[in-house]
């Protein structure tokens, strides 16, 4: 069996990649995908820790967090859609009305 720390390392790496993606990429869709990556990285570490402690709780939390992520993605895509309709682009560099 693959030892637990391996899973935790992968999870941490995925989380960091996701965070960098959100902060560096300028395309809103890619940012949204990076966000999902971060949330799923956390899910992976929840499951790994649950195995480590032999506790069913961690597995249940993953279901809750998947549900939340889905709701969040739905709202995020809806907001993105309104922006695309108005500007025909999802490049976040075009969002600068509020910086003065």
């Amino acid at each position, binding site marked *: 069996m693959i030892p637990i720390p391996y899973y*935790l390392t992968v999870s941490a790496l995925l*989380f960091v990649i*996701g*965070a960098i993606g*959100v902060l560096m990429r300028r395309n*809103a869709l890619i*940012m949204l995908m990076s*966000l999902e990556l*971060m*949330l799923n*990285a*956390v899910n992976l*570490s*929840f499951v*790994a*820790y649950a195995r*480590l*402690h032999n*506790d069913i*709780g*961690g597995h249940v*939390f993953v279901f*809750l*967090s998947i549900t*939340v992520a889905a*709701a*969040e993605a739905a*709202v*995020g895509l*809806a*907001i*993105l859609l*309104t*922006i695309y309709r*108005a*500007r025909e682009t999802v490049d*976040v560099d075009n*969002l600068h*009305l*509020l*910086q*003065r």
Partner: protein
Amino acid sequence: MDATALLESTGALLPHLMVLLTGLVILTMDLFLTPRNRYLNELVGLAGLLLALILTLSSLGTPRQVFMGMAVSDHLSAFFNVTFLLIAALTILLSASYVRRENVSAGEYYTLILFATTGFMFVAAAADLVMVFLAIETLSIATYILAGLLRDEPRSQEAAFKYFMLGALSSAFFLYGIATVYGVLGNTSLGHLAQALGQGGMSPLLLMGMALLIVGLGFKVAVVPFHMWAPDVYDGAPTAVTAFMTAGPKAAAFAAFLRVFFQGFATPDLVQQWTPVFAILAALTMILGNFVALAQQSLKRMLAYSSIAHAGYAFVALVAHNSLGASSLLYYMVAYTLMSLGAFTMLMVVARREEQPYAFDDYAGLGTTHPLLAALMALFMFALAGFPPTAGFAGKFYVFSAAVQAGHYGLAVIGVLTSVLSVVYYARVIMIMYMREPERHQPALQLAPTTMAVLGITALGILYMGIFPGGVMQLAEQSVALLFQTKM
């Protein structure tokens, strides 16, 4: 968990369910309303909130954990419930004329306000980190949509997008923090956390988890350096929503701070770890919030930075980590709710249309054209600046004396100095109202009765809490007593 326990648990959370139910009723009812009887939305919303208030007050009793230790019903959650219900009720009142003016679909708007309020209330009742996360997500997702409510308004779209992106990012950090704490302790219950930590067992991993939780919650409160979204979002969102956002989610995030750090991470070793971090955050927030507010040309943006600065003052109360600190935080939240909602309501009254920037010049000569409105605005500005005899003064007084009591003299000094600085930009509004002539002839402002009610309630509340601070403070002390009993 048998049937009686389930019933009992549900009974303890009846106020929360009542607010949720009211939201659902409005959502359904709105489909059948004609423009003529659209006022029913507000009526049902207020009635539901009143019922929830009665349920909250009648369920006061011995603190008890419900739903297998996921939620708790005690005096602290009751105090926050009343605060949140007040915020929701005032928001509904101040939005009544706004939704008609801006042509917002009222049913969805009020439903989202009530859903967010449900989220606030669940944060205050949380007894488990997972519960804190779910409640914060409930309120966040509702407020993301609220920020983008004016779908065709580019500024509103942009505010919603920024709020969503950084809000979701902070949620991810918060969730990772929970996962890490769970990894160290094998449990996420706040009560269990305190117990396990009492037997020693501090590890670097645990500190990392704690740091991630601070980052996640710090974003929600908008403390410096996690504040970059706040000015843009508060500026771009519809003004009624901005009023709601500066009061509600902020108070809820502070409730989460109290639950997580005063109940969970409350062993002396750990407190020593997080107090210096909180102290730095508080100092930075007070300094930056006030200095940048000085330079603003738009009143709405100025109030946005002022809201950041006030989060800094409230943060000082957390650093103190004593009974006075916790109770002054509760007092400050109520006081800030009244001040902020009052000031933003004035903003909506004076700036007739949403597209216009909220320039200071709009207020020129308000003292002669609308003396009563000008006096109210002056009261709100004095309260935000912290002049006696207003709630703003009493709140700051309690917070800073808590800091002094805990030996954080430096923070108290920074707080007082930045408060003095803040007088400059609040007084600017008052000066423009009274000292300058109106630029050109402007039509008289019209106030709906609901708007007048909000202004009256907030003004009287500010004065009452300022002149007789004892009443609310005593309630706050009773509410936090439990936090310091269980810790030992």
